[in-house]
C-alpha cells in the first residue's frame, strides 16, 4: 500500500512541457487546478490607467498525481527539470503519504486503482 501523492505548484506556462515530460516517464494521470499564491518574491505590479497597481498573489497551477513509492524520485526529477526556469517563482513540490485509492468504476483498491 505504499503510495505517495505529489503536489507541485508550477508556472502556468510550464504545464505543457511538464505534462509531456511526465507522460514520457509513464505518468499519465494527473489533476490540474488553477490557484493563486506567493513566495519570497511576493506579488507583481500591473499597469493601471495611469501608474500601476500591485497584485499580491500570482496565478499558478497546482498539479497533483499519486504514484507508487518507488516512482517518487523519478517523478520529482521529471518535474524539477521540466518546470524549472532558474528564476524565482518556479514553484514547489510537496509529497504526502496516501492511505488508499479507490477506482470509482470498478471499486478496485490500492495500487491496482492507480
Amino acid at each position, binding site marked *: 500500500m505504499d503510495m505517495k501523492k505529489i503536489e507541485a505548484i508550477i508556472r502556468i506556462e510550464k504545464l505543457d512541457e511538464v505534462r509531456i515530460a511526465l507522460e514520457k516517464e509513464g505518468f499519465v494521470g494527473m489533476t490540474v487546478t488553477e490557484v493563486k499564491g506567493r513566495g519570497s518574491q511576493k506579488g507583481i505590479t500591473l*499597469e*493601471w490607467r495611469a*501608474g500601476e*497597481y500591485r497584485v499580491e498573489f500570482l496565478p499558478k497551477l497546482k498539479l497533483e498525481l499519486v504514484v507508487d513509492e518507488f516512482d517518487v524520485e523519478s517523478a520529482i526529477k521529471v518535474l524539477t527539470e521540466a518546470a524549472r526556469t532558474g528564476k524565482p517563482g518556479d514553484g514547489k513540490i510537496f509529497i504526502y503519504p496516501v492511505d488508499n485509492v479507490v477506482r470509482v468504476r470498478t471499486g478496485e483498491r490500492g495500487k491496482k486503482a492507480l
Partner: protein
Amino acid sequence: MNAGDTAWVLISFALVILMTPALGFFYAGMARKKNILSTLMLSVSILVLISVQWVLYGYSISFGPDKGGIIGGLNWLGLNGISLIHSGYAPTIPHTAFILFQMAFAVITPALIAGAFIERIKFSGFLLFSLLWATFVYDPAAHWVWGIGGWLRNMGAMDFAGGAVVHITAGVSALAVAMVIGKRKGYGKTPMEPSNIAFTVLGAFLLWFGWFGFNGGSALSAGPLAASTILATNSAGAAAGLTWMIISWVHKRPSVLGLATGAIVGLAAVTPASGFISPLSAIMIGMVAAGLSYYAIILRMKINVDESLDVFACHGVGGIWGIIATGLFAQKAINPAGANGLFFGNPGQLGIQLLTAASIGTFSFVVSFILAKIIDAVFGLRVSENEEDVGLDISQHGETAY
C-alpha cells in the same frame, strides 16, 4: 422637415442610447469581480429612470419656455403641448426627434458620475441621488447653455455637444460625491484588481462608436457640419489614445487599458469643440487632453481621494480643457453659426468659455455636495461594511455575474 436630417438624428439617438450600457461595461470591467453586476446596474437603471423623468418633466424644465434665463417652464410637462417642429431648436426635424436625442444626453450624464462611488454605493440612495441630480443639476445646466433664453447661451457660450453640460457637470459632481461617500474599505492598502479588462475595452469602443451620434448628431442635420464633426471626433479620440499609450510606455509599458482610457478622454475633450474646429486642431486637443488627464489621475492617487474610476480626471478635466480649447481653436470658417476663438483673432470668446467652465463647475460641485450630504444623512448613501465585504452583486442585487 427634411427626411435625411431626421434619419440622421434618429440613428444618432440610438447610438447615444447605446453609450449608457456601453459605459456600464467600461466601468464594470474595472471593478472587482464581486461588483461587476452592481456597476453595470448603475448605468442601466439610470437609462430606465431618466428616460421616464425626461418625458414627465425633465425636457420641460431644460428646454421649455425660459423663466429668467435660469430654468425652463413647466409648460411641456408630460410633453403636453409640444409643437410638431420647434424652429428655434431644430427647424428641419420633428420636435420629438430633438426631444429623444436630448433624452439620450440626460441619461448618460448621471451614469458617468457612477464611476466615482462604485463598490460601496447603496442602491436606493443612488437612485434618489440620480433623480435629484438630474432635476437640480443637469436640467438647469442644460437650460443655461442650450435652452433658448438660457443665460450662458445668451452670453455666447459655445458647447457643441456637451463639454460643459455633460462632462464638466458629471466630472465635478463625481468629485463632490466621492468626498461625501469616502474611500472603499481597504483602499490604498489592499489591491483593487480590475476583474475584466476585456469588458472595459468592449465598453470603450462601443462608446467610441456611439460618440459619432453624440457629436455628429448634435449638428441636428446631415450635411457638411455633421461630416466635419465626425472627423474631428475620430481624430481627437485617436490622437488621445495614441498619446496615452505613449505616456504609459515611457513610464513602463504600453497598456491596453491606457489606450482605451485615453480614447475616452480625447472624445470627452473634443465634445464641446467638435462642431467648430478643423481636424488638425482636433488632433492637438486630443493630445493635450491625454497629457492633462493622465497626470490628473496620478495626482488624484497621490492625494488619496478614492474617486474610484477617475470620472473627474477623465471627464471633468477633459471637459474643462475641451471648453477652453473651444475658445482657442473655434473657427467661423468651419461653422458660421459659431464664433472664432483666440487663435483666430477673437480673445473675447476664451473669456466666455472660461466663465462657462467656472460657473457650471462651481454650480455642479456645490449642488452635488449638498444633495449627497442630505441624502447620506436621511437615507444613507453607503452600504454597511459587511455588505461591502461581500460585494454589492450579492448584497444589493442577490446575483453573481459569472
